[in-house]
């Protein structure tokens, strides 16, 4: 039961902002064997494909988005020599400079942590049903590609 609750915290889609320290601490708490923690934090840029951006709104497919993020965590734990993986994505309106997505990977050795962390964010962007509406001076556009 405890493990289930923990796993729920390790894969989340939420509207609220998050603290990187708190999320890193969830990963760190899993094992004293962890010596390296690689993190990727995606934030909102003020430019996208040459357009100015004022605000982003993320929409997700509730249920399927979480399912795909769980798959990513499980595949990373299976395919890389890492100890714990946390995957977190926000939805709703997010302003310039604010947090959108976070991957945290703890491993004994740093090279494994980096490999897995980069794989997770690449895979997340490929398979997770999340969409992004950009508010620009020329109007609002749904975009396919993340900057």
């Amino acid at each position, binding site marked *: 039961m405890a493990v289930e609750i923990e796993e729920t915290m390790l894969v989340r889609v939420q509207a609220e902002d998050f603290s990187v320290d708190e999320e890193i601490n969830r990963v760190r708490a899993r094992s004293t064997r962890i010596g390296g923690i690689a993190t990727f934090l995606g934030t909102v840029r003020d430019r996208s494909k040459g357009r100015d951006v004022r605000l982003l709104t*993320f*929409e997700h*497919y509730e*249920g*399927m988005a979480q*399912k795909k993020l769980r798959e990513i965590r499980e595949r990373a734990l299976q395919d890389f020599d890492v100890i714990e993986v946390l995957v977190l994505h926000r939805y709703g309106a997010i302003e310039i400079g604010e947090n959108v997505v976070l991957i945290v990977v703890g491993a004994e050795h740093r090279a494994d942590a980096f490999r897995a962390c980069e794989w997770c964010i690449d895979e*997340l*962007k*490929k*398979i*997770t*049903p*999340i*969409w*992004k*509406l950009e508010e620009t001076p020329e*109007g*609002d*556009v*749904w*975009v*396919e*590609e*993340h900057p």
Partner: protein
Amino acid sequence: MLSIKLFGMVKTLAQQQKELSLEFVDGQKVEDLVEVLRAQYPEIGELVLKKKVLISVNQEISHPDTVISTADEVALLPPFAGGSLEANSKGKMKNAKVSR
């Protein structure tokens, strides 16, 4: 009847409806659903035909011969924010403008 969840620019193309309800015979395939969409929502049907919008069945990407029950959870998935599925090559699709 079959309920179909809509997201992003597909929802915009359907006048912000979150879900479509279509007449659909239990046990038909995804390729049959594409024909229904083309008849009733030509703009959306065309995007599905070109694989720019994918169809998921029970939260997994479907194939043309995936069988659909009317109890299944079906959704139309425009290209994801993070990039594109294998079926979509990058940058081919124009962004859909939203009028507010």
